[in-house]
Each structure stands twice: as C-alpha cells, then as structure tokens.
C-alpha cells in the first residue's frame, strides 16, 4: 500500500528496448556489397533502387550548380548538402505521398524526392522572396532557419493528423547542433506524450558550423536522447542509402500504425563548408576531409547497383543528363532573376485588409515614383 507513491510511475515500462543499438545499422559496405539485416529488410524493387540513385545524382549536380551560382553572385549564400545525399534522399523515400516533410535549410535531397523545383528553394538564398514553393502541393514545409523550431511544427501537424484519424506521418530534419535547442526537447516531449506520428531525423554531420559534436552533448550518441522521451532511438550509417531507407521505413511504419514517434540519428559528414560564407579550414583538417570522402554515399550506391547489374552505362549517362537538365533549369530560373515587386512586401503580412498596411504601402509607392535624388523636390 504505502509502496504506491514511490512505485514506478504510471505508464512506466522496462527500458531495455529504449536503448539504441550499440552500432549504427549499415547494410552496404563501401564497396557496395549488401549485408542483409533481419530487423531492417530493404523492401525496394529494382526501379526504386535506381530512382534513389537518380535522385542522389541529381541532388549533387544541383547542389554544385547552386554553389556556382553563389560564386557568381547570383545567390547571397547557400548551404550545401554535399555528402549528405543518401541521408536525405533515402529517408524521404521512406515516406508515402500523403506524409509531410519539415526540413531545415539543408535538405535539397529531400526536396528533389518531393519534386519541389530546386530553383524555388534557391530563391530563398537569392533573396527573391522568403520562400517560393507551395508546401501543400508537395507536402514539403518551408525551409526553417531558426534551429530546432520546425520540430515543433512537425509535432503539432502530426498531433493534428492523429486527432483527425488521418494515417499520415510527418518527418522533421535537424542537425546535431539542433539537438541542443530547447525547442527540439519540447518537440520530443510533446510527441512522446501525445504519441504523435512524427519521425525526428537527425543528420549528424559532425559539425554545427565550426562546433564539433563533442561540444553539443556528453551523451554517447544522439540516439540516446530518445530514452528521455520514451521514444525508440535508432541509428544508421547515413552515407548508406539502403540502411537509411530501411531504418527510416521502420520508424515511419511504426508511427503510421499508431506505434508513436521515433528518433533516428543518421551518421554522415558535411563535405562542403557550412555555407558558402564559411571557411572550414579554420576548424577541420584536410586529412579528415579526405577520410570522409572515402565514405561517399553516391559511389557506394553506384558500386552496389553495378554489382547487382542494375546500372549500365546508358542508365548512368541518362541520370547524368537528367542532372544536367535540372542544373540548366535551375540556372535559367535563378540567373539574373528579376527582383519582384517591392510592393509585394505588404501583400502577405495579414489576411485582413489593414489601413496601416495600406498607408505604408502607399508611402513606398510614392517613394518609387518620386524623382531621383537631387531632382526637383
């Protein structure tokens, strides 16, 4: 009787299953050989395997184009996903069409899978507007710059789906640094309590700008954070597209079937600078970079597909051409793209018509039509 107060709290359960596996799941060796894992079957037909490779190839080419465009002054800044293509493409591939993606600012690979016009995302970096795609059309939320904040939006959206008995799942992307923010904590707290169908996908690319993971947490791995929220914590080799797909797929299916949220840590590496404004030579060595290059996800997938005889030169060339085609489209859309109408600054602030907004709009309109400075005032 007197035991009850101090007995394990209501809803408590054994915790062994909460601990992440000691080793990240890896199915593809760097040379492309497949080592199956009974808990993580790769249910992908040949066509899908090729489609994932294609998306990664396109992602990398568009990523390079974006960097070029920035160098040519066509973009203000750009955050490259070089080296993280598998983590992004394969994880988004694990979703179904009705599911939603809540990206940070680096998920070009996920956008490619969701068939968001890459140029629409790049307009944000060019500064044409603050975003330029319809999130409802692609079920791909706006890029989110304040670290960690989007985790709460994904959680709230998933809560809504659950209240509505809608089987969709949301997946939110953030980085290793993002796990330190209070909002990420509150999101996983809400998700656990509400059993919201959301998958928290951490791309651990080893750095938050210049700050290494060791300055973000003393936890053995980021997947261990799941324990504190009653979520399963999963880990995968984020440069292994098949492992990333299989692990994410499992979490997504569990969430969809009412099994609740999950946290996935994908181990990867940011091959480029944090953004085009960054100088990584100040905080990481050439050796580290070369070493990381050996785990390149696209080469690994290529090796695998060739071993399976799925990827002949013609197909590979086809993908390369498609990638060039994407790059060309991006270039055409971005290069010297017009600024847009300054008066639009007043169009979307409120749904309601407001006299104060109209008055300031009129002020700008007058400024735009005023004679140039020095002219007759």
């Amino acid at each position, binding site marked *: 009787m007197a035991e009850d107060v101090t007995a394990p709290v209501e809803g408590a359960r054994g915790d062994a299953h909460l601990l992440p596996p000691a080793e990240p799941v890896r199915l593809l060796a760097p040379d492309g050989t497949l080592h199956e894992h009974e808990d993580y079957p790769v249910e992908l037909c040949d066509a899908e395997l090729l489609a994932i490779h294609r998306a990664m190839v396109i992602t990398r080419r568009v990523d390079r184009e974006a960097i070029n465009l920035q160098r040519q002054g066509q973009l203000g800044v750009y955050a490259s996903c070089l080296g993280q293509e598998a983590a992004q493409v394969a994880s988004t591939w694990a979703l179904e069409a009705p599911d939603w993606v809540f990206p940070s600012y680096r998920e070009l690979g996920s956008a490619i899978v969701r068939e968001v016009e890459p140029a629409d995302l790049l307009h944000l970096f060019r500064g044409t507007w603050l*975003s330029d795609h319809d999130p409802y059309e692609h079920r791909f939320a706006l890029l989110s710059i304040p670290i960690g904040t989007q985790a709460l939006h994904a959680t709230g959206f998933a809560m809504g789906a659950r209240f509505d008995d809608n089987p969709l799942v949301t997946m939110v992307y953030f980085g290793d640094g993002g796990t330190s923010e209070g909002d990420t904590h509150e999101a996983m707290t809400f998700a656990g309590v509400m059993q919201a169908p959301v998958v928290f996908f951490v791309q651990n690319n080893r750095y938050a700008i210049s700050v290494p993971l060791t300055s973000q947490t003393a936890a053995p791995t980021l997947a261990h954070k799941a324990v504190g929220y009653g979520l399963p914590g999963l880990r995968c080799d984020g440069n292994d597209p098949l492992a990333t797909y299989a692990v994410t797929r499992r979490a997504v299916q569990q969430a969809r079937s009412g099994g609740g949220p999950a946290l996935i840590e994908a181990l990867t590496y940011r091959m480029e600078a944090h953004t085009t404004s960054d100088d990584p030579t100040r905080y990481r060595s050439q050796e580290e970079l070369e070493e990381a290059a050996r785990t390149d996800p696209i080469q690994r997938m290529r090796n695998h597909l060739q071993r399976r005889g799925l990827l002949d030169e013609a197909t590979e060339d086809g993908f390369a051409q498609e990638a060039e085609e994407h790059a060309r489209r991006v270039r055409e859309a971005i290069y010297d793209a017009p600024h847009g109408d300054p008066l639009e600054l007043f169009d979307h602030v409120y*749904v309601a018509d407001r*006299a104060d907004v109209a008055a300031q709009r009129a002020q700008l309109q007058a400024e735009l039509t005023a004679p140039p400075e020095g002219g007759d005032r």
Partner: protein
Amino acid sequence: MSVTLAQAINRALTEAMAQDDRVLVFGEDVGRLGGVFRVTDGLQARFGDRRCFDTPLAESGIIGTAIGLAMYGYRPVAEMQFDGFTYPAFEQIVSHLAKLRNRSRGTLRLPVTVRIPYGGGIGAVEHHSESPESYWVHTAGLTVVTPGTPEDGYALTREAIASDDPVILLEPKRRYWMKSDIELPVTAPPHTSALVRRAGEDVTIVCYGPMVRTALEAAEAAAEEGWSLEVVDLRSLSPLDTDTVVASVRRTGRAVVVHEAPRTLGMGAEIAARVQEAAFYHLEAPVLRATGFDTPYPPAKLESYWLPDVDRILDLVERAMAY
C-alpha cells in the same frame, strides 16, 4: 443577464467549439482544472480531451505545436497561463507565428488565438502581473486585441477565433470578475475599432484593457472638478484605430494615454507620436502618459503605488489643462 468577463470568454470559447469542431483549446491546466482562472471551465467535460487538453509544461512547445496544428487545418486556441510565461515562447511567436504567412507568400494561414491573462492589480507574485503588449504590437504580423468589458471579452474572443490571422488576445486578469448586464451572443459590428466610451470636451483619455474602468472612474471624478473627459477605449492595439483617437483629440485638443505597461516604448509612445503628427495644429498641450514606471513590476504590497490610478490620470489632466 449579468456575466463576468471570465464567464463571457468561457461562453465565447464554448460556442466557438460547438460551432466548429476544428477549434481546439489547450495549454497548462486548461483541461481537468478548467484553467487557473476557470476561463476554460467545462470545456474538456463537454468536448472531450482531444478538443481541450493539458499540455506538457513548455510554452514554446504550446505555440510551436499550435502552429503545426494550424498548418494541418485546426483553429488552435492556446493559453499562456500568465503574461510572464509567454517569454519562453517568444521565438515561436515572433519568428514563426507572426511571419510564416508572409514567408509563404500567402499560402499558409495561421488562425491561431493566443490567450494571455495579463496585467497587475491582483496582488500576485512576480512574473504574474506583466503587461507585454508592446512586444507584440512592435511585431508585424500579429493582431493584438484586449477587452475592457465582458461584452468585448465575448466579442473579441469570437472574432479572434474566427480570424485567419494569428491573434494575441490579452485578457485583463484583474477584470475577470467584473460583471455587466449583457445579451449574449453579442452580434453587431466588429470590435476591432476604437470606441468612445464617454463623450467629453476638455481632454481625451486613451485607454484599453484593465485601464478602461479606471479611466471611466477618472472621468467621473474629473466631472466633479469641472473637467469634461472623453474616454476612448482602443480595444485593438494592432491594428491601432488612429482615426478615432485623432478625431477625438482634434475636438478636445488634449490627450492623456493610460496603460499599466512601463512608460518607455509603451503604447503611449506610439499614440503620442501618431497624434502629434496627425493633429499637430489641434494640440493645445502635449500628449501626456499616465503609465507604470520603467522598473520591474513591484511586489504586491507596493503595486498600488506603481499602477496608474485615478489620481495619476487627474494629475496629468490638470497638467494638460494648464497649457
């Protein structure tokens, strides 16, 4: 019938939930307890714990999930338990709730109502008597309203929930128990324009929320001293109905703005700036401000010295009349 402000808001929430099952009410202790001020009393019992539920103790989480719920298609009514506890949610309110629609070029709508019991005068401990309105009004993208009467409490709540823009609903907690005889539901014109609550000739008193009653009391007291005060209740702080205020000042030539919030960059600053610009040649005295002081909110036993009251208003009326 006679209802309190708290009852009027409760009634508005109940009717909004009954008429639209996309309306959700959540926050800390709003479910089983019915809220620390009982404003959400009975909602969980009537609509179930999917429509009205308690959240973890995390304000940024409450606003952030409200944004996600709104993106999904719900109309969330999120309660911040007290004014001082909106601050942990500041980033979600300012960087997302206020800006997401604009960021999305109009494709996203965030019909989120954030209910905040605010202001002092109830003898509470620190952090429970803040007047944070300036933080929200300075932030483009937010609609900010505050009722001064039970009738407006009902109407502004219904309008906030019906709005497709995010609305900060500031509830003057010291007036929760203020009663008035009204017919509910309140139909009639939108309440987001300012209202002349008492006509007068000498000085315009601009007020809102908890100070509406105080201003009307000051007008009574002033009448005995032979001053005729016109009392303008703003009701909406963003947008700000400058026209009604300016029209009144053009008549009276004098204005005193009253609010609990600290003076520097309080609403009085913005109103003074607009009035001196729009009624420059009509002003017979500068716009004066009867406000709280530029100090942290005081301990309970000293709050009466800090808060604007009839005397402080009349002092400034006298100063304005002396010009």
